[in-house]
């Protein structure tokens, strides 16, 4: 033990003299192993760790597959009566629950927050054995058809919206005109199964009876709704496939009865699907997680190769010291132990940093990937992470120690001493070093180029002109907090009153009774009355102020008028793309398009195209000419409950302020959402921004790793040539001579590396041409040049940096053989 401590003390003393080396190993291994621990923990969580529910092996989700006449899947969502029928049948499942997801405003709350709601039957929390912080879960008295208005809060909602008030139980909250009595608060560690959307957290749980489905939907077998779910504990004696066989006829028969009168559904059927909850939650994320792990393992291997080069250089530096140790009787085993002491200290420090980075990585994933990967909220430093950390530390410490010791030609160490430190007791051939340099350059070029390509595309999308402004624009959507929706006639004067109040706000510059382009369009089938051709452009309601406010130019014809909206005139404005679709010359003013009703819409204007991030542009009849997304606009109704507010520069309006304003006009109205267009744009660009940041970081990391790797191997080569450098200096070589010589000597390897990268690209192209083809445009050329320049600069730096300590000192320093 004493020997071990002494060895580690000596190793530490030796490492302290080389802070640059220590820092490089620490940063490289710390960062990459941190990423590895993150990826391993995530993969374990997603692929191995069971869900935190009792009997999770029997926990299944039943899905309602709607199949068309040609046996094609039309949708994977329940009809309301179909779901209720399945729930009430109690078939195949020992215990089952149904739920309907929604978004609602707690109007009784001062800040009237918009919250995620789930309308559930009481069995849900019983099946999940949900832990509680306060109160109780729903009981039989709150089951379906009891209409008992009670509520449960999530822990975060309790803390954030109710300040963790311990007297929260029995308090009431009002949602859509119903007053709910709070009966329970879920525990902080409760984990909700993400069945509807990854990363969605239900904030308020309410009884199923109160879900937002209207009476029509509750009866209709023709409407499917993605927010309806069924979850249950399968009977012990029923297998997954048996459950499908049991449920399909049960649900299909009832559905056939329900749609018997509707000819549209002739030949259609229902196929029930029963899948484990875990599978439903994982979705495509299993492959994402595995890809992530593979990518990180690749990164670790690159880092490992680079650090190996550094250890080679380090061993070269220490050869005289090792020669002395060998001369006084140290065996290879002794040298290995001494080296192991150094590598274990370095790896221990690296793994501590890696754990810190992994912890930060979990936080980043929870913040930014919560909507992409399930269960990320469960990520934490757990025994698996620590176990992997220990394993990785041991394996890498042994690996680097073994690698360094293998480099030593034990017999040749004697020569090192006999020739006063001149000569080499190391055994990495020049050819091996050249191969290492070439492979470093090839790999770095490929990775940097790949990252640049992704970065370029992401930046291009982020910076792409929208064709409209988002500056100072916000969208206000109203919530009607009563069970009885107002009629169109009733809402017109209320909306007029609200608009009057909004316009009177000193912060408001202008107002439009329509949503912003970023709030979405919907697909609508339209028929050209002239030739019966069908089109499906994106449609949106807009008022007379819409285009001016977002600065979308009207190219031809007229804008909507208030009269159009008041009289319900069937007028339409289309964009250039749709105009070109309708007629090649784009001259479509006066053209009439039918939405299925008796009176077609007449096109009165053409506006310029806009681009919305995330939407795909189309090609015009395969002519490869970019035309943008076809859009059509109809005059919004005077009773529309969505507004765009353009605020004066530097001004802001709060949700609370708007809530009070609405209440002054009609207390049944509240703010459903109030979001700035810039925020929505940022959300829409989330994946591009994430890609840009990730690729930029990765490109930086690849540069760092390439620099370290090349430095390591070139430094090693330079160490070995130390006496040669000294001899050359002695006979008159200047710095320039030596720098040129080292660069020339390595130029061949770098060139081979560049050729190697071309070969790698060619192989990638052969294997993945489908994906790579779209990237192969002339625009790639400057990126190739930029990549080559950057890699060349890194190589030049790696050539010069190890050389500088010899050429900037008197020649005797190199000739003497020791510092």
């Amino acid at each position, binding site marked *: 033990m004493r020997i071990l401590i002494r060895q580690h003390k000596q190793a530490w003393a030796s490492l302290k003299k080389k802070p640059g080396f220590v820092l490089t190993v620490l940063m490289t291994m710390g960062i990459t192993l941190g990423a590895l621990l993150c990826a391993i923990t995530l993969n374990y969580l997603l692929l191995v760790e069971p869900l935190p529910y009792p009997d999770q092996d029997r926990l299944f989700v039943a899905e309602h597959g709607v199949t068309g006449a040609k046996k094609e899947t039309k949708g994977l969502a329940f009809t309301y009566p179909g779901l209720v029928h399945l729930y009430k049948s109690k078939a195949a499942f020992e215990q089952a629950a149904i739920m309907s997801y929604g978004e609602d405003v707690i109007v009784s709350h001062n800040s009237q927050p918009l919250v995620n709601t789930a309308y559930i039957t009481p069995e849900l929390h019983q099946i999940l054995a949900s832990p509680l912080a306060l109160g109780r879960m729903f009981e039989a008295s709150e089951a379906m058809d009891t209409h008992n208005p009670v509520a449960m809060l999530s822990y975060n909602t309790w803390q954030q919206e109710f300040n963790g008030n311990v007297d929260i139980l029995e308090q009431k909250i009002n949602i859509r005109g119903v007053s709910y009595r709070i009966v329970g608060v879920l525990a902080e560690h409760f984990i909700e199964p993400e069945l509807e959307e990854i990363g969605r957290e239900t904030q308020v749980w309410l009884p199923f009876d109160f879900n937002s489905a209207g009476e029509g939907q509750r009866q209709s077998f023709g409407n499917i709704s993605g927010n309806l779910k069924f979850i249950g504990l399968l009977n012990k004696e029923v297998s997954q496939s048996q459950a499908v066989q049991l449920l399909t006829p049960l649900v299909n028969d009832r559905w056939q009865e329900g749609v018997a009168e509707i000819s549209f559904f002739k030949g259609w059927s229902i196929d029930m699907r029963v899948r484990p909850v875990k599978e439903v939650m994982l979705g495509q994320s299993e492959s994402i997680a595995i890809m992530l792990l593979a990518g990180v393992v690749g990164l670790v291997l690159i880092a490992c190769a680079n650090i190996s080069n550094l250890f080679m250089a380090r061993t070269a530096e220490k050869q005289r010291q090792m020669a002395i140790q060998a001369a006084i009787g140290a065996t290879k085993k002794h040298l290995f132990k001494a080296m192991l002491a150094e590598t274990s200290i370095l790896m221990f420090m690296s793994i501590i940093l890696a754990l810190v980075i992994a912890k930060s990585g979990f936080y980043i994933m929870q913040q930014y990937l919560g909507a992409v990967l399930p269960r990320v909220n469960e990520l934490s430093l757990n025994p698996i992470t620590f176990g992997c950390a220990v394993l990785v530390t041991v394996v890498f410490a042994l690996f680097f120690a073994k690698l360094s010791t293998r480099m030593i030609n034990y017999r040749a160490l004697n020569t090192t001493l006999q020739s006063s430190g001149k000569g080499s007791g190391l055994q990495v051939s020049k050819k091996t070093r050249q191969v290492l340099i070439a492979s470093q350059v090839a790999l770095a070029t490929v990775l940097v180029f790949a990252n640049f390509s992704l970065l370029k595309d992401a930046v291009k999308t982020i910076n792409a002109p929208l064709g409209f402004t988002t500056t100072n624009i916000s969208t206000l959507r109203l919530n009607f907090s009563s069970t009885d929706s107002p009629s169109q006639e009733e809402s017109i004067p209320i909306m007029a009153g609200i608009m009057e109040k909004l316009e009177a706000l000193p912060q408001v510059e202008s107002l439009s009774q329509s949503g912003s382009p970023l709030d979405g369009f919907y697909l609508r089938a339209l028929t050209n009355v002239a030739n019966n051709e069908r089109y499906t452009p994106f449609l949106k309601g807009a008022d007379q102020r819409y285009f001016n406010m977002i600065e979308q130019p009207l190219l031809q014809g007229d804008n909507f008028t208030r009269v159009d909206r008041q009289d319900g005139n069937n007028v339409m404005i289309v964009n250039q793309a749709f105009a070109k679709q309708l007629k090649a010359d784009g001259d479509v003013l006066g053209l009439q398009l039918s939405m299925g009703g008796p009176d077609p819409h007449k096109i009165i204007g053409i506006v310029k195209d806009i681009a919305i991030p995330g939407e795909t542009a189309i090609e015009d009849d395969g002519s490869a000419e970019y035309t943008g997304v076809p859009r059509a606009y109809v005059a919004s109704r005077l009773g529309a409950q969505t507004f765009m507010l353009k605020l004066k520069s530097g001004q802001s309006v709060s949700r609370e302020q708007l809530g009070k304003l609405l209440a002054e006009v009609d207390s049944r109205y509240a703010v459903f959402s109030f979001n700035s267009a810039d925020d929505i744009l940022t959300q829409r660009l989330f994946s591009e921004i994430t890609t840009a940041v990730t690729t930029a970081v990765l490109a930086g990391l690849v540069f760092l790793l390439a620099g370290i790797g090349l430095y390591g191997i070139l430094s090693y080569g330079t160490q070995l040539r130390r*006496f040669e450098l000294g*001899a050359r*200096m*002695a*006979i008159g070589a*200047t710095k320039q*001579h030596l720098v040129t010589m080292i660069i020339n000597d390595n130029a061949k390897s770098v060139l081979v590396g560049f050729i190697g990268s071309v070969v790698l690209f060619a192989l990638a192209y052969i294997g993945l041409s489908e994906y790579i083809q779209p990237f192969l445009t002339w625009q790639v050329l400057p990126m190739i040049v930029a990549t080559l320049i950057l890699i060349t600069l890194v190589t030049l730096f790696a050539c010069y940096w190890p050389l500088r300590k010899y050429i900037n000192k008197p020649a005797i320093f190199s*000739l003497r053989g020791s510092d």
Partner: protein
Amino acid sequence: MTTPIIKVQQLGKVFSTNDMLTHALQGIELEIQQGEYISISGPSGCGKSTLLSIMGLLDFPTTGKLFFEGKDISQLSMEQTAAIRNKKIGFIFQQFNLIDELSIYDNIALPLRYAKQPTSDKKIKEKVDYCLDVVGMLSKAGRRPTQLSGGQQQCIAIARALVAEPSILLVDEPTGNLDSKNSDQIMATLEALNNQGTTLCVVTHDIRYAEMAKRKVYLLDGRILGQTRFDHQSMY
């Protein structure tokens, strides 16, 4: 009195480690005249190689002045000292310091290729062949250093030192890695060169070879303990 090739005045060299200063040379006064054959000897660690390195501009003195052909070169830059080494000084080392990857011919030609004034390939060949002939190794021009014996390698090192026609040859333990037969041969070659007019300064701990010089300098603990000339015997 002609200007000495090398003149050293009150030269000192201090090596510093973390917490210790070592005075390798102190108060050295020395002149080397054109055509001289001088040996520097003394026990291990006395500073003879350090003195040779400083006189050969491979290292810088800590104190004192160094004149080369009458010019004070103590404050020259590394680039300037490299140029002087290339043109005016020929080095012969104990370890030969030949470059294994180059042929014998290229090893010898190397100083000419580092010269500021480019030499034509024809002229280089003439000079290299001449130097190879001087050391009797003309037939080995195409070989690599590793294909030669130690004695042969040292002969090549001598040829390389001579090729730029330097003002002085600085020789550091030329026989340190050689057997006695080869050692005698090398020392005979050096003596012959001196007889032809080449200025020689040889560092050696071998008393036999030190005695071959026409002037002998004895160092002890970084100081010159005594000097003697072949025509003016005096005891240390």
